[in-house]
């Protein structure tokens, strides 16, 4: 492919919204691949980001009623970085959002630690928001 491979530029933003179901996280990963390629990330960075976005979605879904609400993914080109914001909207929370000690959430956070430059998670008013930033040109390990 590729005259289109470097079309995304600083400030470009893409949004994806889909029902908050684990089996649809594949959509987030596919979109992430396409965007990373067009933002100039090499194939290893692209794979890292794809893996990380999967974890970000999982992290956002932790503790929610998985059959309710929408997962909104916003990917932004920020200079030589990509920022991903993942928000669980209108979720019916089955339980309290995943506490820090939750094992699954903790594993996702540890994986994000290894793959991206920065990440975080916020919860308020039943809405869960997790985010990450990853620069190209320097492999986070």
């Amino acid at each position, binding site marked *: *492919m*590729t*005259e*289109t491979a470097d079309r995304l*530029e600083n400030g470009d933003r893409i949004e994806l919204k889909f029902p908050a179901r684990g089996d649809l996280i*594949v959509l987030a*990963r*596919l979109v992430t*691949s*396409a965007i990373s390629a067009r933002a100039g990330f*090499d*194939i*290893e960075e692209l*794979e*890292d980001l794809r*893996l990380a976005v999967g974890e970000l979605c999982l992290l956002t879904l932790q503790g929610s009623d998985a059959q309710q609400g929408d997962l909104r993914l916003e990917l932004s080109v920020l200079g030589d970085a990509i920022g991903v914001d993942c928000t669980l909207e209108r979720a019916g929370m089955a339980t309290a*959002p995943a506490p*820090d000690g939750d094992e699954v959430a*903790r*594993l996702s*956070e*540890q*994986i*994000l*630690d*290894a*793959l*991206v*430059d*920065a*990440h*975080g*998670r*916020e*919860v*308020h008013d039943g809405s869960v928001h997790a985010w990450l930033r990853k620069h190209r040109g320097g*492999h*986070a*390990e």
Partner: protein
Amino acid sequence: MTEGREQDPGPPSDVVESDRPALDPVAREELITSNLGLAHQLARRFLHRGEPLDDLVQVASVALVKSVDRFDPERGVDFAAFATRTIIGELKRHFRDKGWAVRASRRVQELYLELGHATGTLVQQLGRNPTVAELAEATGASEEAVIEAIEAGQGYRAASIDASESEDDPMSARLGEHDSNYASVEDRALLGPALASLPEREQSILRMRFVEGLTQSEIAAAVGVSQMHVSRLLSSSLQKLRDGIGQAEAGRR
């Protein structure tokens, strides 16, 4: 609740080995055993890159042992977090050392070609076009990989578009030298406005040539002009399209 994490600048596997006393063998063994599940889970995260799970688990397990031997509790870092970073670092290094980036690109191309063969076979078997799930099963790839290969393959298909056309009238000859530029959905999105800006007669001639597949002589007869005139109209229309698309692309940048 708000939390954010900025990563440490140095990779975990570069952590200087501590001078702490080595764990006694039993404690070391227990620490390794209790974290084998973590190594396995992390190895699974790297599936679908062309490496067998067993190999990945082995890499992850060796990295776990390395983590145990390097871990210094006095640094105040949680062992699981430290091990996760070390294991992921080693898994990534494993792929890097094997030249994975080059192979991955080739793998996508190969899968795309494989999909072409599998599609042909399945169409004959099923009497209809196969689904992605069926293609995934036939090729042994994941559905996600199939979708990616199809998406990536748009570029390759554009390059070989003549393959499905007759030798004396290849599609590229009909479309002109820039045929591959119009092959993708994205490019057709650009083509639409440019096409609409052409005079109605030129749009009509282009449609007869490229949509209905009429020859220049047949168009000439239908429109009531000479074949040479049709040829000139097609050339100038295509040039206008290229110019229009070029302007649209320049406007987007």
